[in-house]
């Protein structure tokens, strides 16, 4: 009889119920109280975080739900990105989507529940279902500006690419099931080892399955060459949703990749499939992401498109940690994602508020911002410096950790490439700062963020600076997640 320990899925159950509460209370108040619904959602996410602290640890549902440190660490990232996305949404829910506020917040919460389930599953079926629950609400959220052609295009594009990549992933997963007759990742590894001992080889079906899984997850992560959808979707979607996509859903893809590959099938594959080394495949994808993301970002004039390409490059840096695939690698990838959460959500929050109040997403419109709204401009500068990896911001510590892990694992060429592209990235991040501070600006509008947006910006700035100067506690937490893989 399997163990149904409901205690450890209380945070997920609560967040799901809260999504229903949010939708119903929006309907109940006849959609008249925009602020209340937003605060209600933020409170729900915060309470889920508290519940997560009290109800963690343990395995339930026949190994389908694991509340280990890896899951808890990533759930903190998911909840953080949902909290910050909701906090920066108050402007658009007041104006552009006032007919569907409850559904907007509700779908964000549904997607977060999906990410939380995904990060807890070490079994292919629940992993896949979690991934679907993550992405299906995001298709709708990307198309939420129904009167805007770009947004509808974004939704449709994301839907088609998302469905296609899910199909590829599912095909890969079903091949793995055919090979091993189990869906549990650890049992799968044992069965593969038995097959290998029995026959001396496994065969190309395994390679085919692995390639399809990497491609499927690569689409979700917007890894080059599976990134072509990202710029259009990021530009067209409502800006808080773009932020949520670029942090939350990428962290979800990352945790799926870690669960399936690190010390699971990957280490096994590298032992068996000589001379084919899986690290090399991911390393090539990572270097393509760093090169293409950074170079394409140089030419962008729209802030959302620039941040889209920048996030493609950033995920390339995370992949350097994944390539290392040892204690340091997993630690650094998790830590990088944690810092990226604050810096990227913060940068998108700035873009959201700026877009709401000036109606422009062009980088050139930021000229003179340092005179009209000095604090706001300073916040953006902090986020840009962190994304570029300048000390003492968190981005520096994160890049340092990732590169150290890469060198330790013997991928010196990848780290050198990473350093070179980081220098390139400095150009376009610094360009924003230059525009805000030194360009002759006609911008006279004083940007005045709403209270929740201020909270999000403050959270971002404090997170980036505090964890940049004192990375210790988070690093320790991230190191514990590596323990899940037996390091």
């Amino acid at each position, binding site marked *: 009889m*399997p163990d149904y320990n409901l205690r450890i899925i209380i945070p997920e159950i609560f967040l799901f119920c809260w999504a229903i509460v949010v939708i119903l209370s929006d309907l109940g108040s006849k959609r008249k109280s925009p602020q209340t619904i937003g605060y209600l959602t933020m409170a729900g996410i915060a309470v889920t975080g508290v519940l997560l602290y009290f109800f963690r640890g343990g395995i339930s549902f026949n190994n*389908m739900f694991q509340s280990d440190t890896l899951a808890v660490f990533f759930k903190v990232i998911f909840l953080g990105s949902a909290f910050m996305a909701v906090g920066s949404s108050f402007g658009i829910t007041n104006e552009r989507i006032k007919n569907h506020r409850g559904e907007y917040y509700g779908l964000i919460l549904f997607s977060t529940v*999906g990410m939380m389930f995904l990060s807890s599953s070490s079994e292919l079926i629940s992993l896949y279902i979690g991934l679907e*629950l993550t992405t299906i609400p995001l298709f709708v959220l990307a198309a939420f500006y129904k009167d805007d052609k770009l947004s509808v295009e974004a939704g449709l594009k994301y839907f088609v690419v998302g469905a296609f990549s899910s199909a590829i992933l599912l095909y890969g997963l079903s091949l793995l099931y055919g090979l091993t*007759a189990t869906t549990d990742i650890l049992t799968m590894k044992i069965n593969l080892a038995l097959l290998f001992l029995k026959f001396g080889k*496994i065969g190309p*079906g395994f390679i*085919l399955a692995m390639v399809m899984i990497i491609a499927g997850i690569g689409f979700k992560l917007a890894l080059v060459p599976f990134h072509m959808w990202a710029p259009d979707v990021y530009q067209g979607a409502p800006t808080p949703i773009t932020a949520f996509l670029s942090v939350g859903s990428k962290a979800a893809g990352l945790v799926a990749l870690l669960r399936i590959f690190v010390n699971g099938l990957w280490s096994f594959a590298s032992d068996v499939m000589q001379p084919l080394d899986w690290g090399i495949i991911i390393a090539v994808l990572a270097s393509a992401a760093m090169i293409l993301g950074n170079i394409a970002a140089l030419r962008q004039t729209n802030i959302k498109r620039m941040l889209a390409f920048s996030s493609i490059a950033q995920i390339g840096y995370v992949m350097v940690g994944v390539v290392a695939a040892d204690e340091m690698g997993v630690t650094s990838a998790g830590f990088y994602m944690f810092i990226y959460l604050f810096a990227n959500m913060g940068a998108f929050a700035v873009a959201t508020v700026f877009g709401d109040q000036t109606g422009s997403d062009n980088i050139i419109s930021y000229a003179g911002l340092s005179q009209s709204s000095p604090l706001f401009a300073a916040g953006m500068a902090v986020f840009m410096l962190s994304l570029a990896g300048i000390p003492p911001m968190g981005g520096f510590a994160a890049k340092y950790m990732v590169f150290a892990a890469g060198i330790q694992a013997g991928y010196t060429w990848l780290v050198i490439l990473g350093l070179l592209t980081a220098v390139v990235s400095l150009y376009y991040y610094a360009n924003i700062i230059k525009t805000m501070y030194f360009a002759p600006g006609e911008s006279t509008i004083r940007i005045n963020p709403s209270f929740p947006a201020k909270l999000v910006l403050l959270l971002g700035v404090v997170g980036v600076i505090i964890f940049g100067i004192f990375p210790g506690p988070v690093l320790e937490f991230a190191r514990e997640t590596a323990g899940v893989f037996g390091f």
Partner: protein
Amino acid sequence: MEMVANFISDVSANPLFYLLAFVTIASALCVVTLKNIFHSALCLILTLFSVAGLYILLHAEFLAVAQVLIYVGAVSILLIFAIMLTSQLASRKIVQSNEQVTVAIFVCFLFLLVSIGSLFNTYWNGINAPLPDNNILTIGILLMTDYVLPFEVVSIVMLAALIGAIVLAREERS
């Protein structure tokens, strides 16, 4: 490797297999080549139906029933409704391919070769497992015991999709 060969000879011993395989491939080709989208939709139903037949030959009765209920029943009706409700779509001539068609055929063919090659050169553990006496009963019990969590999460996925569809389809009053 003998496992795969044995398995294939088991399935192909049944003459029905050839009929179903032929109908599946022919109707699938029609789906992607016909000029009228309504005819394509009808051919798609035939494809899905014959795939359900193949599932029965493979002793996957539950999958076959689900295929008929969901794809042949619900999805195809939806498809036809969508075509009928879109003005003039049913009568218009459409071209289903663009200048990439040769590349696409080449890539698909390559993928087919790779799939077949790996099918015959791999040890598939899944084939060895004996079938339970009552397939559908076992699936039902598993869904309610071992796999109850993903089974329940699917209902949240449905709810999210439902809410999303309503939001997108609803006409805005301003």
